[in-house]
């Protein structure tokens, strides 16, 4: 398929749902992608099977503080510059850029860079949702190296890291990003299309666009149930939001008081950028790595966790994550215990079946 200006809104809406409360406000990414497409034309979205086996696929993202990104907007050519670094390093062409994190602004930015660089976008991502750290990617489960990692700023500074593992990469990227002014462009897990086929979440971009289109047209809950297997956790009003910062991450918890069919129930939502855990009347009803998303009744869009506030009328849904996350190594990386929740992971659809 081709991503043109009319598809961007659908992509943004879809990304917000997959983002599960994280990924930032998609508006800025949407405008950037639109500007780039207006200048560089539509972006081809290609399946990994249609790319040459040894062609390089480059997942890209933005790292940094959302506040800074909103002020210091990227140049737009970062994707092209990163591409050049890799082509020099590997001595072969980059055939496509890819979305690293499917959510909010991060799902949109690669579109802008691809349009700017005249590259196609591979129809995949590395998470199938949003996570806050760069090692929380499915290729990590397949033993693929995260590097070389390239960090670039808008001035033309480029740093390349060959890190021993993903955790070290995260450790090296953060101070570099800080030096660059607290936001930077990033490429991780460069891989050949052949390698990528088994190691990433495939079909993400087309799935997000399709979901976005359907959401705009029909009953959101029915669409989500049919498309991603979403279950409804509660329909109600946000009655309490608490936030705190630990180790540079914005964490918090919100309480949704049920109304209508859910009157008398309380849902507690725990989040760290992304929604991580939902407890209904003290009972866990969904947890990472499954995706928990808050939908606003007014506008029916997904609400990012930093925009949760008292009085919002919302429906909270959850749906299964990519199967790779449900394996033992997957759960070790991003399961409830990885976030400090002393709970065993139970797939959301199984909890739901037991409750029904």
């Amino acid at each position, binding site marked *: 398929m081709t991503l043109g200006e009319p598809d961007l809104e659908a992509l943004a809406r879809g990304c917000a749902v997959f983002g599960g409360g994280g990924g930032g406000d998609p508006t800025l990414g949407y405008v950037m992608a639109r500007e780039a497409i207006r200048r560089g034309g539509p972006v081809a979205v290609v399946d990994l099977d249609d790319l040459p086996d040894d062609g390089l696929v480059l997942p890209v993202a933005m790292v940094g503080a959302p506040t800074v990104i909103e002020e210091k907007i990227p140049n737009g050519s970062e994707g092209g510059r990163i591409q050049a670094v890799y082509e020099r390093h590997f001595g072969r062409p980059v055939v496509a850029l890819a979305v690293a994190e499917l959510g909010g602004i991060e799902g949109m930015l690669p579109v802008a860079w691809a349009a700017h660089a005249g590259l196609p976008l591979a129809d995949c991502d590395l998470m199938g949702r949003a996570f806050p750290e760069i090692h929380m990617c499915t290729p990590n489960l397949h033993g693929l190296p995260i590097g070389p990692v390239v960090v670039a700023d808008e001035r033309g500074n480029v740093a390349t890291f060959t890190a021993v593992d993903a955790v070290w990469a995260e450790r090296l990227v953060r101070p570099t990003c800080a030096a660059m002014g607290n936001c930077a462009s990033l490429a991780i897990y460069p891989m050949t299309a052949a390698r990528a086929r088994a190691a990433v979440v495939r079909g993400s971009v087309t799935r997000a666009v399709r979901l976005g289109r359907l959401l705009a047209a029909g009953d959101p809950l029915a669409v989500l149930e049919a498309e991603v297997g979403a279950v409804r956790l509660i329909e109600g009003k946000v*009655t*309490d939001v608490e936030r705190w910062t630990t180790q540079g991450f914005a964490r918090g*918890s919100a*309480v949704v008081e049920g109304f209508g069919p859910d009157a008398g129930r*309380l849902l*507690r939502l*725990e989040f760290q950028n992304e929604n991580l*855990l939902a*407890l209904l*009347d*003290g*009972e*866990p009803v969904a947890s990472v790595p499954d995706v928990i998303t808050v939908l606003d009744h007014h506008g029916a869009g997904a609400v990012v966790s930093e925009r949760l506030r008292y009085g919002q009328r919302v429906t909270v849904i959850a749906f299964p994550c990519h199967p790779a996350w449900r394996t033992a190594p997957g759960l070790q990386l991003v399961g409830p215990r990885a976030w400090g*929740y*002393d*709970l065993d992971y139970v797939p959301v659809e199984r909890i739901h079946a037991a409750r029904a």
Partner: protein
Amino acid sequence: MATVAELLTIPRLAGAVEPLAPVALDRRVESVAVLEDLHALGTPPPDSLVIVAEAASREAVGYRLDVLLRQASSREVAALALVREPLPRPSRTAVELAQRGHLALLRLSPRLGLAEAVIAVQQELAGGVSRLLERARACLDLIDEAERLRLSPATLVERAAEALGAEVRLGPPPGERGWLSVPVLIDGEPGPRLSTPGEGGDADTVRRLLLHRLVAAIERLESARQRAAEVPVQTRAELLTELLVREPQASRDLVRRARQLGIPIDGWHVVVRLELENLAELRPGDEVGAFNLAQLAVRVATESARATGGTWNRAGTGSTLLLVRSWQAEVGPELQAEVARAADLVIGRLRARIPRLVVRCGVGGVHVGSTGLRTSAMEARAALTAALTTGRRNLAVRFDSTGLRRVLLQWYALDEARDSVARLLEPLDRLGERRGREAIRTLRAYLDAHLSAGRAAETLGLHRNTVAYRIQRILELLGVDPEDPEQCLMLQLACRAREL
């Protein structure tokens, strides 16, 4: 078996356990269990109090507490006690879950040993004499401590009830059957009764013994309280007495001390002067008896005055007694009548307590400040003199214009009085008839206005400065100190007598 609220009163847990939310305190508890690991709740017996050990309690925050509460209520746990230092308020979800599960959420101080807490609760739940003995021990400890802690009898009763975990009442004899009750002697006479419900058997013997110990303690506390209350009254009385007899110049220090003692010296006052005419005759030849009678009269008068409400202080000794009613905020002259009514009441009480007693009583006007206090005392004395001359007994006589007029007439009829008035006002008379009359009119208005030139000016329809100037001149001519109430009263009497 006991309710959560009852468990909170277990003496050994006192101060170390508190509810985190006012939820399910009426829930009945059957047993007690300890939870070492948040994940190992298992199946505790129904209606148990689960004490979460300290390490596990530290983890039971946020969503973990929600999960624990949820599990606990599904297993019919009656109460959860977290061993924590004081916590911030529990989260909305936690309180809500506790409410839904009708499950009490408690905090237990880590200072209390876990084993001790468990044993205390178990003993309480076991009931019977052993429970009572444990509580009786706490009650006796409390009685031993009562004086050191300066408990009031009411607080002692309240705390004893807490320690006993049963109702304890100080008041009229109980209406209910089966209650145990012991009278309390106040001033050697039977007063209220101390009562508690009985259950029969050996336990009631323990209860009866405890009641007697408690009553003895209450009597001790009560008499100590009376003595303690008397000391500052005594000091105040002496101070006031001095204040009223001293020269005004020498009283500045006294005024300061009065303020320190809490006498509202800067407020508005009415003085009641009581003379107990025949106190000596009532106990002829018995000096000790007469002294005791005087003491009794002082106490009865002071107490019955206070019983009428408001701030009262007393002064004077022997057969003359001054009662001062004071207000912090400004009050009008009409309140003199109210004080006079109170004085009548006091006289009534005195005569009820000491039959055949004869009392003379004068009530001064309402005046402000320390000078005003003295003025009111002078007026009370004048009114009392009027009472004497007019033969009114056992009745409060007010210092007011009508009563005064009669007194004045009688007084002015005396040659000596006429002479002294003439002597006093002579400097003004020398001004000539018209100017003299004008000066006396001005002076009277000034004195009636409690030495306020402004108000006098209003009465006279003159400018304030005119009045101030005239008064200065008049006082110079007379050589009188307006701050001296005695001189002022004499002047005021003289002015009024002239107008008769």
